[in-house]
């Protein structure tokens, strides 16, 4: 590969000629790799049109008033000011999203790791079965069954058991009462929280060289916790980083599941998340500028939490 930043080309009287040479060399390299770009073209076109462009458009529209009928009109920071200072429901959505993410993100991540770690010690057949069992909730779409469990009448499964045990006398309105909604939603989300990260951990643990543990035992590693801290975790860092992204992103993207479970909007906005707020303003009120400001805030929130956690994980064991 030609050195594009060769100092000879960067300064002095040859600068103009240098730039031309550099550009020509870049063009040559690109031409030489023509086939690579062709291979990447189909994916890239779709990716740019449906992922990159929409992110940029959302940021652009977030500074405008736009109702889909008239052309967008630039209004500066007004949308953000309205969102953060005047919209109480948005603040509620932000709090709910943060609460769910703070519980679900770390819990999903830790549970994924713990189950994978425990399962890894079992014989292969049992391991395969338990992997399937714990992963099945993210494959299965069984919110109808959860609705039966948490049904608000006395025939609801949990209510009927609690009543026949004498723990309660009247059915609890699990999916209609603002006080019980959040815990119920978190339980159901936790139930389905072993997903991509869980598989990544299962796989990562199986590839650790057993000699490492033997060497560790010789060097004075005495129990499973020391083994975990000194050998397993540092070896597994690539998986830890990948899984963190998967768990964090999933913990912010729970809106659909909540809608399937309790409907939209939820009673008293008890489990109203940023995604629901975006749905409300984008697809019901057609206030695109405002909805795009919500999308931009959600985007910044997801990306910054992810980046901070990545920064932190990169330092483990260094």
């Amino acid at each position: 590969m030609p050195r594009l930043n060769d100092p000879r080309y960067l300064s002095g009287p040859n600068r103009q000629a240098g730039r031309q040479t550099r550009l020509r060399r870049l063009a040559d390299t690109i031409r030489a790799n023509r086939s690579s770009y062709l291979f990447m073209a189909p994916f890239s076109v779709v990716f740019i049109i449906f992922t990159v462009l929409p992110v940029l458009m959302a940021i652009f529209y977030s500074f405008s008033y736009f109702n889909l009928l008239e052309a967008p009109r630039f209004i500066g920071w007004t949308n953000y000011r309205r969102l953060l200072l005047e919209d109480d429901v948005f603040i509620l959505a932000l709090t709910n999203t943060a609460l769910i993410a703070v519980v679900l993100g770390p819990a999903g991540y830790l549970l994924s790791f713990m189950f994978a770690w425990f399962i890894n010690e079992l014989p292969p057949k049992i391991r395969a079965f338990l992997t399937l069992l714990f992963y099945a909730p993210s494959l299965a779409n069984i919110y109808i069954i959860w609705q039966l469990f948490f049904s608000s009448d006395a025939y609801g499964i949990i209510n009927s058991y609690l009543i026949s045990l004498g723990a309660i006398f009247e059915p609890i309105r699990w999916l209609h009462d603002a006080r019980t909604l959040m815990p119920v939603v978190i339980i159901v989300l936790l139930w389905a929280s072993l997903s991509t990260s869980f598989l990544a951990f299962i796989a990562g643990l199986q590839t650790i060289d057993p000699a490492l543990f033997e060497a560790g035992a010789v060097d004075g590693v005495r129990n499973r916790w020391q083994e975990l801290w000194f050998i397993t975790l540092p070896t597994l860092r690539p998986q830890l980083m990948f899984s963190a992204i998967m768990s964090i992103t999933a913990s912010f993207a729970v809106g659909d599941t909540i809608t399937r479970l309790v409907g939209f909007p939820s009673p008293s906005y008890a489990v109203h998340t940023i995604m629901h707020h975006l749905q409300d303003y984008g697809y019901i009120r057609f206030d695109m500028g405002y909805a795009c400001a919500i999308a931009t805030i959600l985007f910044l929130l997801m990306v910054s939490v992810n980046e901070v956690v990545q920064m932190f994980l990169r330092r483990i064991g260094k």
Partner: protein
Amino acid sequence: MSRKGIGFSQLPGLQFPARRRINRSRAGNMLVILFLLFCGTFTALPMWFALITALKPLNELWLYPPNLLFVRQPSLRNYADLFLLMSESWVPFTRYVFNSIFITVAGTAGNVIFSSMCAYPLAKKRFPGSRIYFRIIVFSLMFTQTVTSLPAYQIMSGLGWIDTYFALLVPAFAMPLGLYLMRQFMLSIPDSILESGRIDGAGEWKLFWILLMPQVKPAWLTVIIFSMQGLWNMASSNYIYREELKTLPYALGQIVTAGFARAGVGAAATVLVMIVPISVFIFAQSNVVVTMASSGIKE
């Protein structure tokens, strides 16, 4: 790895690899097993309940309190009722089934082909832009489609794709997770395989399809799982309003919203829908594990 264990590990079916016996106390093992049993029961219960509720005859559905674990006289009545309800729907029910199968199969196939084609140069070559491109892909794992859905709607409507299959299929072709897993897995395939093909004078297209693609079968099975998981379970989309284009989970959701009166039918529908991705996963499981082993983020 030495598998010569002692004691109960010699029993058939309990072959612990010898290395696992280092640094493990019996009490600790018991605690771990109890913990797994407890959580396993919690995980399995709703799915098990769906299975048995689907088999309960009417009189058992109305037992109070409901029997969580067993069905006394299993019957297929609920499935028969489900098919009866289906035949009454306004749009022929087969249409919903076709939509779901078509969207899942075509979307998944496109995703596998697009992401593996794109992953090949990213994994096996260095060229201007290759590193920054991969950085962007990792970055895009950090947010979801919620962020992009509103402008994407406008793009769709600009293209005239609202209320067409394209709106559901094409975005599914470029799922960053698919590309990411594919690329990471391809890194682990030795270059020598491609070199030998180059010496024989094979073009890039041939190298990719004939030499590389069979080697990365575990990765495409994994991409298939992740892709179909989303597409098969998709109940609604902001881009689809015509009834004829709606999917099976949507239609089943409409049938069973009536609560307890249709609990048995609802459970039957749930079982029918969940059985598909679960059986594909069982079939692909070992390949998925092989692929995920290379999924880590390495600097």
